[in-house]
């Protein structure tokens, strides 16, 4: 097996751990590459197609490399009613990327997710896990600019 995936050894060989393995790969690489799929398949003695089949079933897994700052927009019920689609539009207009895409400089990626569980602060988004609530356009642009400043 590809040595860079040797951490899979700690999981044991039972198929029960397949999702955990894919999560470990994604945690380390930020996404699951073709090499990652092959390594998991080899480790559990499954076909690569079987592994890919499981992977594509779950929304959490990414097959594309994400940006340095991952923006997750919550589109749960409360956020949707409070204007999540607008937040998405504004971010898309500002950064030029759509759901699932990464900016060409690799700084931001955008992902619309189901409920983040902070419904009372709707509409919310999370940047690398940090949650921002009660968003409006002004607040949103300010947050994006702060991250941009960090990169400049």
């Amino acid at each position: 097996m590809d040595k860079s995936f040797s951490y899979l050894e700690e999981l044991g060989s039972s198929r029960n751990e397949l999702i955990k393995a894919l999560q470990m790969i994604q945690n380390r690489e930020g996404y699951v590459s073709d090499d990652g799929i092959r390594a998991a398949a080899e480790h559990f003695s499954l076909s690569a197609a079987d592994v890919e089949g499981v992977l594509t079933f779950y929304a959490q897994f990414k097959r594309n490399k994400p940006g340095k700052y991952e923006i997750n927009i919550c589109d749960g019920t409360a956020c949707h009613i409070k204007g999540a689609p607008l937040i998405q539009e504004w971010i898309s207009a500002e950064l030029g990327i759509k759901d699932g895409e990464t900016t060409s400089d690799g700084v931001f990626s955008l992902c619309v997710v189901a409920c983040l569980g902070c419904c009372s602060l709707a509409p919310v988004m999370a940047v690398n896990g940090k949650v921002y609530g009660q968003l409006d356009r002004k607040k949103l642009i300010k947050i994006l600019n702060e991250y941009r400043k960090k990169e400049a």
Partner: protein
Amino acid sequence: MAEIKRIKIGAASCGLAAGAGEVVTAFRALDLSYPVVETGCIGHCYAEPIVEVELTDGSSIFYSHVKGDEKNVNDILALGEENRFTVSAERQKLEKLMVTRLAGRIDPKDMEEYKANGGFSSLAKAFEMGSEAVIENMKKSGLRGRGGAGFSTGMKWGFLAAKKDTEKIMICNADEGDPGAFMDRSLMESVPFQVLEGMLIGAFATGASRLFIYCRAEYPLAIKHLKIAIDKICEAKLNLFPGRDKALEIVIKEGAGAFVCGEETAMIASLEGRRGQPRFRPPFPTDRGWNSFPTSINNVETFANVPVVLADVDAFTALGTPGNTGTKIFALAGDLKYPGLVEVPMGVTLADIVYTIGGAEKGAVKAVQTGGPSGGCIPAEEFGARVDYDSLKALGAIVGSGGLIIIGNDRCMVETARYFLDFTHRESCGKCTFCRVGTMRMYETMERIVAGKGVPEDIDFLEDLGQKIRKGSLCALGQTAPNPVLSTLRYFRHEYEAHVVDKYCPAKVCPALSDVAVEETKCIKCNLCRKGCPVGAISSDIKVDNSKCTRCNSCIEICPKKAISRVKKGTGFDSSK
């Protein structure tokens, strides 16, 4: 005079999102002589960040909307009067804090504090009374699964306990996927020991030897707190039951983002490392579950109820209504004043929850959506209904996991239903044709209607297809997916008719059926709207170009004279309304 004994800061996800982290840092920086602890959530999300000052005389003072600045912090340390937080007497009268009694009041990571507040006494009681008596008590309590289906917990455990000579599995369903529900997250973050005590009691009663907690990966804080709690439980050997030679294995499994995995057979498939697709039942999981071992799956809130039930069964059955005993935690969100969590006895009315507890204005609400995307909407005229499994079902909705989304008068019910279908059609696992293709066709029809391209026949089509999807789907996801459309058709048919016949959105929400217009007699040409418009749709003489406008409402919100509003498509102010 009483002095400060301890400062408690609500630092569950909702508190942290509101800025509790900065508040914690500010208090900790002061090097106080008493402890500053991070607690969980007391349910009043609208007031976050919340700080509780515990006094030496046993009383507490709460502060809401706390900021981490010097003035605010000093004010609190001086027990100032500003920003004190109280719960209205009317709300207190309705609330009954049983399961959430300790939530937000204790340090979630401190096992000793949980014990000092009666924690693990129900587990000890269970050991004393023996496994059969525990199950008898659970049956007697009438506790029904809090995940949505409402099946008797005692009976489920009875089925599992009856299996002999095999390894048995118990799973905690913490894959809270309903948008708008967050009680499970709050319980895991705030009282992880209580959830685990319920699981330990379940494992003892049923003879299960392996426990899984299947938790959404989107809940990192819940997972962190559960991990800490599990470590401490194992260290104290509470997972080694009297008479057993092997300690119980407790494992957290992180979900990977599939709503359907809340269904028990799909969850089992996922735990086996497969695609999370449900399968036909029977065999039920208690006969054939995880890797073919008999398995019982219960919800987080159900487990959190267990220690409460065992502590005093009679007190539990005294609450609620016959057949719907105990309390239920509801998550309130949407168009109301006090979003958050509330625990009330089963059988209070929707009006109690929406108006008295939620603070929604009477007359400003047109419906409430219960049970998330699987549930249905209930119109304001029916708010006298009691909230329990059976009454809501009669109205075409469900209790579900307990999410309540309050929908204000200015929302479009057709658009709301479209949104729920957008969610379910994407989450369909694809196994059953009616769910896979049917929800897609329903969704496309709804898209057409909100885009102003609907025809009157669409309404009959939606009704017919909805019934067929209900009948033709294997699991609850498909069986309930048409609910939002069918229930809005039942109570808000006129809104659908307005969309398809008159090409008019009564709430003026649907962009394709509404324009934004400036009422010239009110406009003072202050240009605020023009500067605020993100797409430059407002001209220098303050006219809105509706072909550019994205209906974002920025101008409507910013206008000091309330001169801008939504109007029926193609009409200005003279001919509107």
